[in-house]
C-alpha cells in the first residue's frame, strides 16, 4: 500500500436535509447535514462529499447555503456534486467553499466539460463520478441523473476517457449495491481502479467493517466513501437531540428509529481502527475525540 487510504463520508442532500435511500431511491430524511458534517469532522473524516440528490431535477440554492455554512467550520476538503452542468456552475460551488466537484450526468452528455473544468480550475478539482449498473449479462453500463437514466456508456472505457480529458479522480458507485449494506461491487471497483492511473473512490454498499477493508484490498480502491454505515448511529443521536425537528420529506424513518439490519453502524474511529488491524494505512482518528455516543444501535 503506497497511499494512505481516505475515508470520505457521503452526505446526500435534498432541500435542507440529509437523506439516504436504497439503490438511489426511496430517500429518507436523516437530519440536518451540518450536524452530521460536524460529527464526521470531529471524528477524523479525511474529506466530506456532498451530493445534491435532486439537483438534476430542481434548483440547488439550499445546497449552496449548506456548503457555505459547512466550509466556515469544517477544515477538511469538501467535494460537491449533483446537477453541475457548466464551468459557471462549478465556479459558483467552488466560491461557496467547495474544494472539488463531482460530475456525472453533464460529463457523459458533453465530455468536453471535464477538459473545460480541469483547465479552468486544475485537474485536481475534477472528480468524475461513475454510477454503474450491473446488467444481467454481467456487463456494466453508466447511468446518469442520480441513477435514473441509461447512457449506453461502458464505465471502463469512460474512466480512461475521463482521465484523458483531465479528471483528477474517479468515483465509482455500484447502483445496485448503493444503500443495501450488502458490500461494494469489488469487480467494478477493481476494474476501474486498474484501468486508470489516478485515484479511485469506491462508493455504495458498505454495511459492515469487512466491506471497507475488502474494497481497498480486493477492489484496489484508493479512497472509500461511506454513507449508511456512518449515518445511522449519528441519525439516532440526532433524533434524540432534535425530537421536535419536523421538515418536509419522509421522516417516518426517523420516527421509527429504523436501522437496516444489514447495516452495522460504525464510527469513523472504528472504521480506521479496523483498517489499521487489516494493515491498511490511514490517518489516525483525531486524539481526544470521544465517540462513545457513536456506537452501533
Amino acid at each position, binding site marked *: 500500500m503506497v*497511499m494512505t487510504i481516505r475515508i470520505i463520508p457521503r452526505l446526500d442532500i435534498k432541500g435542507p436535509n440529509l437523506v439516504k435511500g436504497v439503490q438511489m431511491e426511496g430517500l429518507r430524511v436523516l437530519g440536518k447535514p451540518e450536524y452530521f458534517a460536524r460529527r464526521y469532522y470531529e471524528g477524523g473524516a479525511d474529506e466530506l462529499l456532498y451530493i445534491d440528490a435532486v439537483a438534476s431535477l430542481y434548483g440547488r440554492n439550499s445546497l449552496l447555503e449548506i456548503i457555505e455554512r459547512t466550509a466556515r467550520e469544517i477544515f477538511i476538503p469538501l467535494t460537491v456534486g449533483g446537477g453541475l452542468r457548466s464551468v459557471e456552475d462549478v465556479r459558483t460551488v467552488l466560491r461557496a467553499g467547495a474544494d472539488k466537484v463531482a460530475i456525472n450526468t453533464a460529463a457523459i452528455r458533453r465530455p468536453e466539460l471535464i477538459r473545460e473544468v480541469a483547465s479552468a480550475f486544475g485537474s*485536481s478539482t475534477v472528480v468524475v463520478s461513475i454510477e454503474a449498473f450491473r446488467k444481467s449479462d454481467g456487463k456494466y453500463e453508466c447511468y446518469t441523473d442520480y441513477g435514473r437514466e441509461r447512457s449506453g456508456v461502458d464505465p471502463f472505457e469512460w474512466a480512461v476517457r475521463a482521465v484523458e480529458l483531465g479528471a*483528477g479522480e474517479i468515483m465509482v458507485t455500484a447502483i445496485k449495491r448503493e444503500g443495501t449494506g450488502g458490500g461494494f461491487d469489488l469487480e467494478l471497483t477493481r476494474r476501474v481502479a486498474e484501468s486508470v492511473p489516478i485515484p479511485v473512490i469506491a462508493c455504495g454498499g458498505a454495511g459492515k467493517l469487512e466491506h471497507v477493508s475488502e474494497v481497498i484490498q480486493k477492489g484496489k480502491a484508493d479512497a472509500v466513501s461511506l454513507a449508511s454505515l456512518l449515518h445511522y448511529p449519528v441519525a439516532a443521536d440526532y433524533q434524540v437531540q432534535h425530537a421536535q425537528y419536523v421538515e418536509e420529506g419522509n421522516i417516518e424513518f426517523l420516527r421509527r428509529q429504523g436501522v437496516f439490519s444489514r447495516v452495522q453502524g460504525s464510527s469513523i474511529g472504528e472504521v480506521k481502527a479496523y483498517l489499521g488491524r487489516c494493515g491498511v494505512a490511514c490517518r489516525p482518528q483525531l486524539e481526544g475525540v470521544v465517540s462513545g455516543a457513536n456506537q452501533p444501535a
Partner: protein
Amino acid sequence: MAQTSLPSVAIVDFGLGNLFSVKQACQRVGIPAAVTSDPGQVAAADAVILPGVGAFGDAMQTLRARSLDEAILEANQLGKPIFGICLGMQLLMGDGHEFGRHKGLGIIEGDVVPFERGASANGRVKVPHIGWEPINRPVHQGRDGMWQNGPLAGLRDGEYMYFIHSFYVRPSDASTVAAVSRYGGTEFCSSLRQGQVVGFQFHPERSGPEGLRIYENLARLIMK
C-alpha cells in the same frame, strides 16, 4: 507599522485554487486577510499568501500578465513574510517542469518535478497524490530543527496533513527544507523555510485542527 493598526495580509488571487478556505482559516485565527488580484495591494500588504492549484506554467503566465510576480518579488525584497501553499509553494522555486520547462518566481533556489506514475516495489503509484500523509522533521536538523518557533511549532513529528498534488519541489539548499514526507517510495520536501519565506506542499487550511494550528503560528509570525 503602528501598534494600533493590524497588519494587512494579501491572499493572491490569480484565478485558481480554493481561496475561500484559505480566507476562512485566516479568519478563524484572526489574520486580517483580503483576497486580491491587484498588484498594488499585494506589494503594499504586510504579508502575502500565495495559494493555488493547477498547472505551473499557466499560473506563472497569469501572475506575469497581471504583474503579480513583480508585486510578490517586491514584497520579498522588503523582507515581508510570504507563504506559498501547494502550487503557491512550487511557484516560489526557480524552475518548474510541467509540460516543458518554465521559470518560476525564483525566490527559493531549486526546481519542481513530477511524481512518476506506475508501479513501485510495494504497489501502484497513482498521480495526483491525494491524501493525508505524515510530515516529519528532516533528519539532519536534529530533534527540534526549524519547527521551534516556526510555522510548524507545536506540531507532533509525524502529524498528518492533507496533500493533493502531482509535483514536488527540490530545493538546492537542503537547509531550507523544514519538513519531509513520502509518497510512492519518493521522499519529498513538504515544507520549506528561508528567512521570512515559507512553503507548504500540503493544505494547512484543509488539514483539520492541526492545520489550523499552523495558521495560528502564521498569525504569530505576521503579528510580531
